[in-house]
């Protein structure tokens, strides 16, 4: 967060960057990394994070351009502004990395995650789970007499909130995809 509580909307290289680069406060940043889709490229990226002691809070990866052999890796990481800048620079020097975007610093971005919840229960708990799922706009994608699987897409916070509500109602398993993100606008 900026020291002046000014909305983030600038890169670290902009003259309008008001982030305090000496800040010791940890920030969460979402990075979009466009890479050559070749064997080992994911290992290069995550090896960089583990080797240099950076955090990975969430990671998704898939090919996004079949003819151009491009994959997009979305990583949610956390660190002080200096560490975030360093992560960006270190990613940028991997030979198979084409572009690195700090979506958190570059402007507003849409973040979405898909999650599946298996909830088992009977009676009132089962009805309550179904009712809450409706409120959260989760879909039922599998059901037995004793269980549901809910599918939900949303921000990580929304998924966390739903998981918290399901826990006392018989939550058995969660599968999450990790965050996919795009910057807003054209």
């Amino acid at each position, binding site marked *: 967060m900026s020291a002046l509580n000014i909305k983030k909307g600038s890169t670290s290289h902009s003259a309008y960057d008001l982030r305090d*680069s*000496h800040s010791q406060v940890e920030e969460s940043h979402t990075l979009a990394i466009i890479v*050559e889709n070749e*064997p*080992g490229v994911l*290992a*290069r990226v995550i*090896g960089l994070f583990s*080797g240099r002691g950076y955090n990975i809070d969430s990671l998704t990866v898939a090919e996004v351009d079949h003819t151009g052999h491009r994959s997009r890796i979305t990583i949610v990481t956390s660190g002080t502004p*200096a560490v975030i*800048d*360093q992560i960006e*620079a*270190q990613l*940028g*020097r*991997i*030979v*198979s990395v*084409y572009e690195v975007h700090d979506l958190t610093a570059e402007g507003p971005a849409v973040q979405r995650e898909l999650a599946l919840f298996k909830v088992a229960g009977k009676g009132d708990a089962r009805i309550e789970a179904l009712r809450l799922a409706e409120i959260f706009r989760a879909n039922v994608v599998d059901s037995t007499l004793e269980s549901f699987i809910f599918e939900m897409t949303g921000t990580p916070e929304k998924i966390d909130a739903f998981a918290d509500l399901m826990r006392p109602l018989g939550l058995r398993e969660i599968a999450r995809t990790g965050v996919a993100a795009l910057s807003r606008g054209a």
Partner: protein
Amino acid sequence: MTKQMTGARMVVQALKDQGVDVVFGYPGGAVLPIYDEIFQQNDIRHILVRHEQGAVHMAEGYARSTGKPGVVLVTSGPGATNAVTGLVDALMDSIPLVVLSGQVPTFMIGTDGFQEADTVGITRPCTKHNWLVKDTAKLSETIHQAFHVATSGRPGPVLIDIPKDVQFATATYTPMEKTRLQHYQPRTKGDPEAILRLVEMMETAERPILYTGGGVVNSGPAASALLRDLVAETDFPITSTLMGLGSYPASGKNWLGMLGMHGLYEANLAMHGCDLMINIGARFDDRITGRVKDFSPHSRKAHIDIDPSSINKVIRVDVPIVGDVTEVLREVLRLWKERGARTNKAGLEKWWKQIAEWRAVDCLAFKNSDKTIKPQYALQRLEALTKGMDRYITTEVGQHQMWAAQFLGFEDPNRWMTSGGLGTMGYGLPASIGVQVAHPEALVINVAGEASWLMNMQEMGTAMQFRAPVKQFILNNERLGMVRQWQELLHGERYSHSWSESLPDFVKLAEAFGCKGIKCSDPRDLDDAIMEMIRYDGPVIFDCLVEKHENCFPMIPSGKPHNEMLLGEADTQGVIGAKGAVLV
């Protein structure tokens, strides 16, 4: 022209097209087809090493002394894993290498086959980039790309893993000019606005200092020439890291000597007290900065580096300039001259007076002896007796390395080969052979400690076989000197395993290898012995028995800032706290 050929022939063809004249290597099952091709040609010389680590260090010595990439060929499994230390060494010191490793055939990968190792997995963090080539049609292009990646931007080692069936199969050769060089085109031109800011600072600075590093050497001879121009025109003082020695001549009047943990008093205090620090191709390594919080507290800092990740990694700077040293310095000089070539003359005059006071401390002074050879004295004599010769120096790692950096003077870049970042004991002997192979007529001396030297001494066999008349100048204190020094200062003089109770007779060892051995223990005999070493036409192992308990000073203890240097034994009592002791 499209040419069909086997993968093995492609390797040799691609190396020829890249202008490679020598390969350091060791054969094995998974590279036999390539060795078969090497056998059938005479353009590329193959230097058979005794251990793959030696091959990589030789290639480093070759690369550092020529500016060209070094090439290594090793087999799969142990061949590749033995090369790992050398790869990391080259990565840390930004030395361009192309390492080719054999691999089990593609259909056997993953079956734990004989001499199979996950070479690309193991070397991924040890290289700038690596490739596993599974299709012969892509092999030649990959090799050309590998040379591009190794030598452009911040140089470094790359590795190509080539399965044996890919070497046997036939495909079309892609020549260099048809190779797609991917998107990898690092930025070399500095930002004009940042350059302008630096020039403005240069015009007003009262206490400027140029802090140069290995990036000047890597940028090529033009960078050194521009640096010399810059110093001559501005009259700024200049210091250098271990890796950058020779970019500015040691005989130059503005030379303050090396900086850092065992750097000179005047260099470190000038770094601490400056008001403008211009970092040119160095990376604020922890051996340089000491305690980061107190590093050069009153200066504005500019940093010229081709690697954006070096900037603000350790020390926040005011003016970052991403670019190649040659291009940036050319622009800085041009702009500074265009604006009237101004400096703060009054400020500089005061600054030089201050520096003269620091110089007067004579921090390299040591107590000489007429009974035992002091290591510093041995290097002073080596310097005096080889000055002006066509000389290249390599070193191992430890006290002798620091003394060599302090007491030997380098007038040109590419004359000093040492393991700086990784600190690899065992580097110097093979590196000296690599240098000698590149410069057959030159005097190549490896300044060594006996412990480091033993780590790769098998390479004397290589020196003999290929008639590389390298001189192994071993400062033998029968101790792991630097470890011993730290144990004395930090661990209550408990000398845990820092000496060897069983050392070989180095003269007999020399005889066993078929080269010349010289032993010297009396300072009065030293000059004659050194001359005998220089004059001998062939490899020499020089066993110089030196004072066993000499400590290397000056020293900035771990966790201390530059202005808290130790100048000699008297300064050492209780200086390193518990916090410093945990640092390396």
